[in-house]
C-alpha cells in the first residue's frame, strides 16, 4: 500500500483532485442553492488529466490511440456529468452517452457484438425506460429530492477509494490475483459508485493494452458469470477461437460458459415469473 503510494504519486494526486471536483459539482443539499461551477470543473479536469497521464499506456497505432482516448475520456466525463446533473432527464442522457462511449471501447477491442448488444439493452431499452418513468412521474418538473444528492460525501469517498483500489491493483501488475478481487468489489458496491463503472472500463482497457496478450482482462460491464472462469469475451484463454466475431462468441458462450449462461437464463426466467406473479390481475382492479 505505502509502496504503491510512493511509486505512483501522480495517480493519487489525480484521484484526490478529481474527487474534490466531483464533490464540488454535486448538487447541494438545499434544492436551488447555486455554487459556482468553475472551480469544480477545473479540479475535475486537472484530476482527470493527471490520472490519465499516470495510468495510460500508448497503443500501437495512432488512430487506435486517438480513438481510445476520445472514448475513454468521454466515458469518464459523461460519468461525472451524470452524477452531477441536477435534472434527472439530463442525468439519464449522460448515462446513455457514457454507455455509448464504453461501447466504443468494446469496438476497439474487437468485440462488436458486445458493443451492439450493450447499445440495444442499455441505451436502447433501459435508459429509455428511465426516461419514460421520469416523464410519467414528474410532469411538473423534477421533485426537490431529485435535485440534490443525498450522502454525496460518502458516495464520493467510497467511489474514489474503490477507484484507487482498482488503480493500485492494476498498476501492481499482479493481474492473476487482482482480477477476482477487483470484480468482487465492483459487484459488491451499490449504485453509489456509479461513476466508477466507466472509469474502471477505461483503466482496464489502458492497462490491458500493455499487458501480455491473452492475459485475463476483465470486461467492465461483464455479466455476472465472467469472474468465475478463466479467460473472457475480450481475451479468450484459447487463442484458437476468434472471439470477436459472432461464431466465436456463440461457440464460447455455449461451450466454455454453458453453465453460467444457463444459470443466468434461469435467474432471469425466475425474475420474470416473479414479476408476473407480483403484478395485480385485471380482476383485482388493474387496468
Amino acid at each position, binding site marked *: 500500500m505505502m509502496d504503491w503510494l510512493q511509486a505512483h504519486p501522480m495517480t493519487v494526486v489525480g484521484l484526490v483532485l478529481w474527487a474534490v471536483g466531483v464533490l464540488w459539482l454535486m448538487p447541494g443539499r438545499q434544492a436551488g442553492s447555486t455554487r459556482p461551477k468553475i472551480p469544480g470543473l477545473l479540479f475535475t479536469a486537472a484530476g482527470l488529466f493527471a490520472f490519465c497521464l499516470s495510468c495510460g499506456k500508448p497503443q500501437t497505432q495512432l488512430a487506435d490511440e486517438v480513438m481510445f482516448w476520445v472514448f475513454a475520456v468521454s466515458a469518464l466525463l459523461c460519468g461525472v456529468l451524470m452524477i452531477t446533473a441536477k435534472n434527472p432527464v439530463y442525468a439519464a442522457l449522460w448515462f446513455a452517452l457514457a454507455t455509448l462511449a464504453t461501447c466504443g471501447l468494446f469496438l476497439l477491442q474487437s468485440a462488436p457484438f458486445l458493443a451492439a448488444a450493450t*447499445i440495444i439493452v442499455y441505451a*436502447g431499452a433501459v435508459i429509455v425506460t428511465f426516461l419514460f418513468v421520469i*416523464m410519467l412521474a414528474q410532469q411538473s418538473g423534477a421533485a426537490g429530492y431529485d435535485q440534490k444528492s443525498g450522502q454525496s460525501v460518502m458516495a464520493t469517498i467510497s467511489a474514489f477509494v474503490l477507484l484507487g483500489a482498482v488503480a493500485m491493483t492494476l498498476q501492481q501488475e499482479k493481474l492473476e490475483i487482482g482480477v477476482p478481487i477487483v470484480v468482487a468489489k465492483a459487484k459488491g458496491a451499490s449504485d453509489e459508485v456509479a461513476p466508477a463503472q466507466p472509469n474502471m472500463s477505461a483503466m482496464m482497457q489502458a492497462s490491458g493494452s500493455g499487458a501480455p496478450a491473452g492475459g485475463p482482462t476483465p470486461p467492465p460491464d461483464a455479466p455476472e458469470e465472467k469472474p468465475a472462469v478463466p479467460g473472457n469475451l475480450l481475451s479468450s484463454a484459447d487463442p484458437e477461437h476468434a472471439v470477436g466475431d459472432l461464431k466465436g462468441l456463440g461457440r464460447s458462450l455455449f461451450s466454455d460458459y454453458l453453465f453460467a449462461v444457463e444459470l443466468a437464463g434461469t435467474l432471469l426466467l425466475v425474475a420474470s415469473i416473479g414479476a408476473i406473479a407480483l403484478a395485480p390481475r385485471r380482476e383485482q382492479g388493474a387496468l
Partner: protein
Amino acid sequence: MPEILITLLTIGVVVAAIPGVCNYLILLERKLSAWMQDRIGPNRVGPMGLFQPLADGIKLLLKEEVVPPHVDKVLYLLAPALSVFTAMMAFAVVPFGPVDDSVPGFLRFIIAPNINIGLIFIFAITSLGVYGIVLGGWASNNKYSALGAMRASAQVVSYEIPLGMSVLGLALMSGTLNLEELMHQQTQGGIMSWNIWFQPLAAIMFFTASLAEANRLPFDLAECEQELIGGWHTEYSALKWALFFLGEYTHMITISFLTSILFLGGWNLPFIAEATSNYPGVWLVKLLVLFGKAFSFICLMIMLRWTIPRFRFDQLMELAWKVMIPLSLANLVMVMFCMQFGFNRWWLFVGSLGLFAAWGVISANLREAELAARPGYVKPKKKAAAVAHGHGHAAGHH
C-alpha cells in the same frame, strides 16, 4: 481508387440523395393518397405537381425558426437532429445495390462493407431512434407532446423484441447476420431460394414490426392527429419539423431495402438479373431491380395507411406481446427443429402456414374466453341457428 475515397464518395452520395428522395416520397405519398381517395392531389407547381417538393423544401428552409419560450432549448433542438442521425446511421450497413464483381471498381453500393454483425448493428442504431421522439416530446413541455412521446417509447421498446426475434430464424438458417452475405446466398440460388419461401411468417412479422418502429400508420399512435394534435412534434415548426419527417422517411427507405434484401432475394429477378446473367451494364439492371423492390414496399406502406385504421393502444400492445413475440419464438423453435434433424427447408413453408393458422385459432378462442368472462356479455348466436330461423341476419333479433 483508394478505399477511403470510395467510402467518402458513397457517404456523400447517400447523404445528398436521401433528403431529395424523401422529398419526392412525400409527393408520392400525397399523390397515392389522392388516388386512393379519388382526389387529384398536388398539381399546381410544375407539370403534374412535380416541382411541389422543391417548393415545399424552400418553404421549410425559409420559414421562421420559432422556439417557444417554455421549452428546454438544448434538448428541443437536439431531438430532431438525433432523429435524422440515427435513421441515417442505420443505412450505413444496408447494401442498396449489387455488391459483387459485376460492379465497376469505383462504385460501391454500401457504405460500410463486411460488417459481421450487420443486422444487429441496424437494430442497435434504430433502438436509439426513440431518443429523438422521447426528448422532443419531453423538451416541448406540452401535454400532447408528452403523451405522444410516452406512447412512442412504450411502442418502440415493445416492437423491438418481435423485430429482432423474427429475423433470428433467418439468421440461424443462413448462418450469418451479414447483410451482403444474406443477399448473396439468395441471389445465387435464384427465385426458389428467396427467404420468403422458407420464412413467410417471419417476413410478415418483420415488416409489421418495422412499420411500428417507424411510427407509420396503422401504428402512428405517437402522433395521431385526431387525439394529440401532432404528438411529440406539436411544438415544432419549419426545418426542425422537417428533420423529424426526414428521419421517418429515411426509416421507411431503410425498412424497404431491408425487407427486400432479407426476404425477397435482393437484386435477384428471374430471367433479368440472375447470378449467371453476364451482359454489359448488368449491374445497373441489378441496382434497378433492388430499387424497384424497395419502391414497391414503400408504395405498400403508403397504401396500408389508407387501408387499415389505427390501432387502439391496448390492441397495439397485445399485438406485440401476445401475438408477435410468441409467434416469432415458435418460428425460431421450428427453424431450430428443422436444422437439427436435417429436414428439407420446404417443411418450413408448410410449418409457417400451420403456425399462422394455429395461432389464429388460439387467438380467436382466447378472445372469446376473455369476452365471456366480462360481466354482461351476451354470447352471439351461431349463424346456422339464425339461418334456421329463416333470417340471414340479426342474431339476437328476437
